[in-house]
């Protein structure tokens, strides 16, 4: 690597520096737009005691779920989990700590973390179990709770295309949490389907500027579908 060139050539290099007990932010919604190979690399490395921040936790044999069997995740901060048996078992037995966070609050926690904002007030979760232990305040007669932002030691991100400088373009709903996670990692690692030369991505079309990105690697992806639904006669 030299200058602004962020491209690395191996997954080992991509995840270098990840160590036990770190906090990792992961992009993806369900199995859509997840950094498949970066997750595989964490599994291979065997890093333990991780706090994972991700909307979901994958399924038994794909996505973040593959980090469960060897107990690599200590805690997960997510909005919707439990699509896998091992997750359920570890959650029920108390081996895995789960902090359920509303989806919009989770997205905003990452966005705020990346933007240098330590906390924000939101009406989401007021009067619910989410509000327990949090500061409450009224603005214009409405009740809000104070939510703290999140930054990660690492952010693992999946984008569609990158240039060598780490400028990113995402594809369709695979964007989801990825641009937010990208801003909030002390080290942000992005895997993409295609790497192009600087200047090949139109500046107006770039979703995430390379300033947030530390490492870029090109991968191949399975892109597993969780709920394969097709149209038969008519209707959505």
């Amino acid at each position, binding site marked *: 690597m030299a200058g602004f060139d962020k491209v690395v050539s191996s997954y080992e290099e991509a995840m270098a520096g990840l160590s036990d007990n770190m906090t990792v932010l992961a992009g993806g919604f369900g199995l859509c737009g997840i950094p498949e190979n970066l997750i595989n690399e964490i599994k291979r490395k065997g890093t333990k005691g991780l706090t994972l921040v991700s909307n979901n936790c994958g399924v038994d044999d794909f996505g973040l779920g593959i980090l469960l069997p060897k107990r690599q995740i200590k805690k997960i901060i997510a*909005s919707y989990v439990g699509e896998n048996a091992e997750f359920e078992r570890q959650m029920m037995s108390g081996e895995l700590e789960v902090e359920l966070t509303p989806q919009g609050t989770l997205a905003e926690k*990452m966005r705020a973390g990346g933007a240098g904002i330590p906390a924000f007030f939101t009406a*989401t979760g007021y009067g*619910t179990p989410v509000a327990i232990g949090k500061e409450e305040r009224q603005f214009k007669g409405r009740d809000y709770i104070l939510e703290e932002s999140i930054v990660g030691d690492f952010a693992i991100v999946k984008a569609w295309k990158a240039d060598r400088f780490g400028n990113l373009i995402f594809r369709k709903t695979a964007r989801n949490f990825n641009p937010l996670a990208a801003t909030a990692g002390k080290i942000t690692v992005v895997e993409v389907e295609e790497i192009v030369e600087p200047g090949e991505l139109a500046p107006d079309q770039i979703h995430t500027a390379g300033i947030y990105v530390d490492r870029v690697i090109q991968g191949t992806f399975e892109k597993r579908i969780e709920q394969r639904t097709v149209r038969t006669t008519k209707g959505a």
Partner: protein
Amino acid sequence: MALTREQIAQRVAQELQDGYYVNLGIGIPTLVANYVPEGMEVMLQSENGLLGMGQFPTEDEIDADLINAGKQTVTMATGASVFDSAESFAMIRGGHVDLTVLGAFEVDVNGNIASYMIPGKLIKGMGGAMDLVAGADNIIVTMTHASKHGVSKLLSNCTLPLTGKGCIKKVLTDLAFIEIKDGKFYLLERAPGVSVEEIVKLTTGELVVTGDIKEMKFE
């Protein structure tokens, strides 16, 4: 007769207006998309980051990068846009969505809603439901009026952990269309063939019945 799932969706669809941006929750709310009146344009928002959700894809159109909030493969309607999840919830929390339809386990006379966890059972999480109920002004909750054992789900106080406090004003059950205001339920309409007495019997929270309660109409 209690309404079927399809009839509940049909009745909700009667509340749609031309030019509405609508977020439909998982389950019965999703079916509302099938009953958008002819000639009316509505745009469906999916909170993972899609505005202008189209119908399910054909086999050839399936794209792993294009799913809805229920993780189902979908397509994009003409004029659709995609964005990240923070932007998506800015739309929701910022009150830009015209109508939100979602399910619930319980609602009460104070507009509280419980929809995401039953203590002692596996807790999967709230997903976007807490943001949706906190952010939307116009929400319709769709649910069954009572459990199979006849236990009311329209209560004086929710017994389950809340998804949102004081945020629900309209509830459509399989028996009745109900408005919530001033700490009471108000009966607006009843399902065809369902008597006011039956509804009263299956509503635990205070239910106000004024005048002649009309039956819902379906085409």
